[in-house]
């Protein structure tokens, strides 16, 4: 038998040698190198021109002035860290970074886990995932409507109003305190301000007599809504205190005060209390359509008539969710401290909107992670005695940890760069307090005339520095 020489074997030609060597093949043809290298050209041109070079250029620009022509050293950076309106952006980014990634991952985890057990899980996942497909701009506008101040427009405030009105219904003649009006301002004739936003008769009255109380500052339209009709002078009645509450304003005689003129309207439906001299209540009454009222069974003594404050309570008028009211009590602090420590309401609202957009992403990714868990490991845990919660806590969660980290980091990067949602959801008055690094960069770089390119570049550099840890993490993940 011929001994075949295993070492040398038949002579191997070029391409087969290539197959053996794999990456970096020195023996391959020059033309082959060229072929696939050439494929890199278009991508390389785009990336080098639009990504790599600009990175360096921005770093350079950050040390130059607004038109990027004169060197200013660290001037831009100094300005950034000493301007409170820019420090606000840092604060907001911190709020977003601390709150959003963890919240969205948590929601995604809960939905990912729960939706596994229902039959309609595909439909559910589609519904939750769908908002990703909308532009952040469109979503911002949607949520702006939802959070609108006016309960006739914003559904959140509408819902709160419904609940609030049921518990604490508004009066027939609400006074809008937020626009500067006061209850006391309604007092006209024989009426003065009473305690706790009520009104009182200026003089006293005794049984068998009547009293006239004149008010102004309420529109005829409102009176029409309450069913008020022409004021009628009160008739007296023994053992009773009677009277009239009317609108002491006549269009024919605008300056006249004190007399009940024929074209003046009474106040219907007003709740009144008869007060004894010691302030205790001797009875209640409600004015009729003409503004007349009557307290019966009144014993002797001096009384004042009180127009209850409940008539003027405006009920719930809406919370300014998109406003700059801070959740943290910082109103007494100086400007810089306020800039750094406030948590404006608008941030919370925007975070809610952003959660609506991205929870589906977290859910889908975590759902995929859950599906890839080794079923047998979980069965082994079950056989070893782990109950449902223990299995979740000691098996599922640790094994899911890598996936959760990926979601958190991805969302973290996402949130550092948010722009559209702030720009479109925060109303003009809140823009300053809702500002973020990316938005500030845009504002400084591209609005207000020619823009301040130096400052904008410095902001971009800071943004990039913040993103570096994620770059490192990604690289390690790919390498390892």
């Amino acid at each position, binding site marked *: 038998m011929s001994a075949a020489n295993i070492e040398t074997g038949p002579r191997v030609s070029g391409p*087969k040698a290539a197959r053996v060597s794999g990456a970096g093949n020195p023996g391959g043809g020059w033309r082959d190198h060229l072929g696939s290298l050439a494929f890199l050209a278009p991508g390389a041109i785009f990336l080098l021109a639009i990504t790599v070079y600009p990175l360096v250029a921005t770093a350079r620009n950050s040390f130059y002035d607004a038109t990027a022509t004169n060197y200013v050293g660290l001037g831009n950076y100094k300005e950034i860290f000493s301007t409170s309106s820019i420090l606000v952006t840092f604060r907001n980014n911190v709020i977003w970074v601390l709150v959003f990634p963890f919240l969205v991952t948590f929601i995604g985890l809960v939905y990912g886990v729960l939706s596994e057990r229902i039959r309609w899980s595909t439909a559910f996942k589609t519904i939750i995932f769908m908002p990703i497909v909308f*532009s952040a701009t*469109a979503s911002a506008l949607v949520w702006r409507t939802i959070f609108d101040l006016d309960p006739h427009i914003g559904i959140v405030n509408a819902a709160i109003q419904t609940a609030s009105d049921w518990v604490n219904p508004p009066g027939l003649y609400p006074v809008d305190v937020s626009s500067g009006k006061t209850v006391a301002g309604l007092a006209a004739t024989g009426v003065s301000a009473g305690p706790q936003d009520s009104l009182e008769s200026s003089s006293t009255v005794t049984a068998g007599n009547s009293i006239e109380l004149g008010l102004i500052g309420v529109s005829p339209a409102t009176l029409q809504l309450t069913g008020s009709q022409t004021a009628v002078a009160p008739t007296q009645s023994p053992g009773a205190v009677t009277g009239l509450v009317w609108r002491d304003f006549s269009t024919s005689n605008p300056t006249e005060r004190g007399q009940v003129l024929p074209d003046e309207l009474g106040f219907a439906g007003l709740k009144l209390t008869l007060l004894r001299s010691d302030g205790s209540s001797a009875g209640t009454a409600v004015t009729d359509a003409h503004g007349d009222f009557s307290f019966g069974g009144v014993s002797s003594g001096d009384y004042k008539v009180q127009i209850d404050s409940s008539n003027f309570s405006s009920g719930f008028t809406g919370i300014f969710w998109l406003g700059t009211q801070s959740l943290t009590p910082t109103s007494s602090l100086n400007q810089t401290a306020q800039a750094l420590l406030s948590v404006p309401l608008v941030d919370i609202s925007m975070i809610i909107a952003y959660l609506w957009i991205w929870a589906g992403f977290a859910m889908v990714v975590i759902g995929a992670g859950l599906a890839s868990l080794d079923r047998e490991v979980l069965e082994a845990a079950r056989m070893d005695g782990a109950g449902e919660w223990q299995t979740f806590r000691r098996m599922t969660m640790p094994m899911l940890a890598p996936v959760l980290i990926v979601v958190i980091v991805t969302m973290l990067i996402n949130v550092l760069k948010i722009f559209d949602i702030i720009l479109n959801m925060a109303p003009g008055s809140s823009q300053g307090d809702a500002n973020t690094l990316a938005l500030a960069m845009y504002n400084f770089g591209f609005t207000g005339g020619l823009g301040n390119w130096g400052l904008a570049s410095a902001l971009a550099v800071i943004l990039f520095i913040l993103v570096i840890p994620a770059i490192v993490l990604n690289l390690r993940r790919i390498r390892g």
Partner: protein
Amino acid sequence: MSAASPATRPPAQPGRSIWAVIRPSRALLNIILVASAVFWLVPTIGLAIISLRPESLFQQSGWWTALAAPSQLTLSNYKTLFGQGLVTGGVLDSLVTSLEITVPATLLVTIISSLTAYSLVFGRWRGRSAVFLVIVGLLVVPIQVALIPVVQEYRAFGSLTGFNPFGTIPGVVIFHVAFGLPFGIFLMYNFYSGIPKEMLEAGRIDGAGEWQLFRRVALPLGLPAAASLMIFQFIWVWNDLLVALIFLGSNPHITLTIFLFDQTRTLAANYWIISTGAMISIFIPLIVFFSFQRYFVRGVLAGAVK
């Protein structure tokens, strides 16, 4: 006699589901999830209803009242907007502009990503892994670092060649392509890595050149990944605001997103335009999403998990 106590727990319902299902909490589970689903649908439905109500009703009563009184609904807002036709700066013109930007950007990103990824996976030159690491590094670079220099570059290009891309549609497309490439290359790279090298080795032995290998082997095989990329990229560029806002400059033609943004800057609370415009802008991504759901989700997963 048995030693252990025969604890009669509820029967473990094993099988394919990991979790044991106990009857009472299933109802609670459904309540939570149904409530969540409703909560998630409310904003979109609200927007749709607002767009279907006449402007005059907007200040008077909330959109939710239309649920009880469907007769309020009308297509008048849509008719008005579409009735404007292709007037520059109107809804339809903006839609066209968005398409003019999105389609080329998507196609270019997909083709260039495929080419680049092919070279990185199947090429036989040194330094491939280094280049790939650079691409991975570029994945999360924020566009803010490139905005100003690119404007400068466009200007410089303009003074050299007479064509300044700033303020033009190509100017926007170029930027989108560049920033779509890292993710696109990453996606295609992962997919191509799964193709057995032997397939191309066999082609090489048969004498095929690189371009032929790419066109006739890698590209067709990579179609599913390319589809995912295209859909993902399409929706991403369609929904962009910042890049278009900057690089269209004062161009009278704007994208749909800019159109919507402009509405918030006008003084009037013209919610009928905002809501109708938003619905129109949502419409196309929704169709893409529902038609190609699988591919879109796959694209999302590829970006995150891996």
